[in-house]
């Protein structure tokens, strides 16, 4: 898939653990794990907003478009 989720990179940069982020934004660790591995069909704007708020970043820092091939 050409959309890559760089949430792991941002978590490492901000030194925030996945569990903490999940608690802050009110989603389960399981769902956060699915998001981190890109195994979801989409991200809600509300979730993205909360992630950006907690990690103090832009949506572009979390999602990246890499063309196929």
């Amino acid at each position, binding site marked *: 898939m050409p959309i890559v989720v760089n949430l792991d990179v941002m978590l490492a940069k901000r030194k925030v653990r996945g569990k903490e982020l999940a608690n802050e934004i009110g989603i389960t660790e399981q769902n956060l794990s699915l998001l981190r591995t890109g195994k979801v*069909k*989409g*991200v*809600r704007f509300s979730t993205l907003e909360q992630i950006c708020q907690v990690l103090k970043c832009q949506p572009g820092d979390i999602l990246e478009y890499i063309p196929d091939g």
Partner: protein
Amino acid sequence: MNRRFSQLVAWGCIAILIVAPVIALYFLINIELFISFAKSSLNLPIQWQTVSDMQWYSVWILTLFYATTGMAGLYFLRRAFSNFAKGELFNYSNSRDLRMFSVFLFVQALAKPLHFSLSSILLSMNHPADQKILSVSLGSGEIKVIALAMILWVMSDLLVSASKLEVENKQFI
């Protein structure tokens, strides 16, 4: 209360699914009983003395096909109600089972007049050439069941679509 009622419906379906094949087999062994039952239920001007055993067995097979459609519908209804009793409400599997039930109900409602017509042809086969019978019967009862089956079919189809949407929605974080 709803769970108990669902369990009751599921048990009822199981009971019918067990008893019906036994009755069918009993009718096959004791074909005379089937003949008297058929004579009383088929209100047709058949010359009964002309009907051979082979014809009665053919009617039995025809009735078996007709009844099997209903049994298949009950099988899917049992599955859905058994899950309702467990507290699993409108998930994808239940919606699909309800849709299958409505499909079989619809098929059986359409098959009822066909069964009657084919029975009349089969039983009057040995009649003289100008006295053979083709009886077509479509009453308000059949039309009601067809309408009910169609409504159920559409509603269960909506439930199947709703379940798919729910599953898809869960894939959005």
